[in-house]
């Protein structure tokens, strides 16, 4: 990857964040009640409202407000929550940490399930195993997170009493109970991604297994397992990186619902609370952080791709 290209990509991330900040700021500006009314309630006196508007700088033009807000964001200051009165940034960053933990666990579990499924389906193409994997992946992509989550709770928490139904315990406080609390959310988030990625691994591996170098490796008498794992899988897994990065978009959306259902204090739950309370600074910060996470994940995927496959030249 040339330095010029990397610079261009960084420029695009900045542009993305600018557009997202404009959209989110725009949407929150059109809301029927302004921040002062939300802070004081419908019955506030005109003087009190005027005083708060003055303090929050709401009398300035929308553009001035946007630029002032953006100026703060650049310095890491996302403003003060209307709901709690505390600075938004530290709360959101802490919440993001928990969400990323959820995402990371889910991606690891997903790879551990999806890659073997994809290999089996590709090797036994057209046979029963392939059909089963295909049916499973259709079911996987067709279940919304809230359905899978509720079914998991019903079976694993309610009937079998194996795991706690919801809640969050920090890893530092009680590692075993903490991990027990992670199992159901991680399972839920993985389901849709397993469906996507196993399909991707299958179709890539089917293509790769038809290529000349695989034929050559087979013809020179290399054991089938080595051909499959060392020559086939390595090349089939490359495009999977891109799919995983694109899935981060689904992942962040899914995290919103999953955190809400399992009462995990991550960024998704913070956003839902903020949206319900119309806490504008918190909504703006949360949405911007999510968009940034998505952009950075995709950039990282492109970097990894170029690094793993020297034939790829971005310019």
């Amino acid at each position: 990857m040339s330095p010029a290209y990397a610079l261009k990509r960084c420029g695009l991330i900045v542009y993305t964040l600018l557009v997202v900040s404009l959209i989110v700021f725009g949407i929150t500006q059109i809301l029927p009640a302004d921040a002062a009314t939300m802070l004081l309630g419908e019955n506030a006196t005109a003087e009190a409202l005027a005083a708060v508007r003055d303090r929050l700088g709401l009398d300035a033009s929308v553009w001035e407000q946007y630029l002032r807000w953006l100026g703060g964001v650049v310095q890491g200051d996302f403003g003060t929550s209307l709901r709690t009165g505390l600075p938004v940034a530290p709360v959101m960053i802490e919440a993001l940490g928990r969400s990323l933990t959820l995402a990371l666990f889910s991606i690891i579990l997903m790879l551990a399930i999806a890659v073997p499924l994809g290999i089996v389906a590709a090797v036994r193409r057209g046979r029963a195993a392939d059909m089963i994997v295909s049916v499973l992946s259709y079911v996987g992509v067709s279940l919304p997170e809230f359905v899978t989550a509720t079914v998991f709770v019903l079976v694993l928490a309610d009937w079998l009493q194996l795991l706690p139904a919801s809640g969050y315990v920090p890893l530092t406080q009680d590692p075993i109970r903490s991990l027990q609390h992670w199992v159901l959310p991680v399972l839920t988030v993985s389901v849709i991604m397993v469906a996507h990625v196993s399909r991707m691994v299958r179709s890539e591996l089917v293509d790769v297994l038809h290529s000349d170098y695989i034929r050559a490796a087979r013809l020179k008498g290399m054991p089938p397992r080595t051909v499959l794992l060392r020559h086939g899988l390595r090349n089939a897994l490359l495009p999977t990186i891109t799919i995983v990065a694109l899935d981060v978009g689904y992942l962040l959306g899914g995290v919103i619902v999953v955190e809400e259902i399992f009462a995990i204090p991550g960024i998704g739950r913070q956003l839902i609370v903020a949206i319900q309370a119309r806490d504008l600074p918190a909504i703006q910060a949360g949405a911007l952080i999510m968009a940034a996470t998505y952009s950075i994940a995709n950039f990282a995927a492109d970097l990894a791709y170029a690094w793993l496959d020297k034939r790829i030249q971005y310019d």
Partner: protein
Amino acid sequence: MTDLLRRLVRTPQGAAGLVLVGVVLLAVIVGPLLAPYDPEAMAPLLRYKGPGMTHLLGTDQYGRDILSRLLVGARATVVMAVLATLLGTLFGALLGTASAFLGGRADEAIMRTVDAIMSIPSLLFALLIVNLLGKSEVNALLAIGIAFTPGMARIARSVALAVRKQDYVNAAIARGEGSLHIVLREMLPNVVAPIVVETTIRVAFAVMLFATLSFLGLGTQPPAPEWGLMVAEARKYLNLSPWMLIWPSLAIAMVAIGFNLLGDGLRDALNPRT
């Protein structure tokens, strides 16, 4: 058209998808007529019943018949999802085709902005819009339509770029046709096939998104028999009757699987080369 249908039925996905979507459409059209009970009639003595002879799928926390609620609720869930997807497709196709036609700087600017908007997860985008417009069924529809627009624009553009290079578009430019004429009359009709495939698959996603919004209390409002709402209510009574959860979940999954299969089948049927 009959030729397409024949090719569609020949693929296993297409045949299965056609059957599932057919059943769903049947429920949408005549569901309320088939419903054995009034979906909102309460029966305090018949609460939390499992499947049985009088109530085929059982009853919920107010003794309402679950089968009747599912049949009547099909309209709320499926029609809304289809309309939302069509809305997003229309906006996206217009934007993408126009972007491909304009080319150069305008195309670059439009697509970079579309990419930027796509970095907001659809669910979050829909949540923000619903919050802006107020919680209701129609606003959820608009929100999903708007949230789908950038993705559709991206696909429409890549197809339209290929069409843009065709001779008949150059001929139209040479004839001195206006831009609007070229986009609407020459290009749009030829980008339809891949867009139909994508739209079909997106309906599955819209059903899930719509149900999710209702589940979070931001879409259809109770006591309407919307499927996502039914799952949300069932969560409170898991230990009293798991059937309240299982049936609407299966219904949502069936619709989504049906449209996913139909979309994949259509892709194969419309694209005989692969």
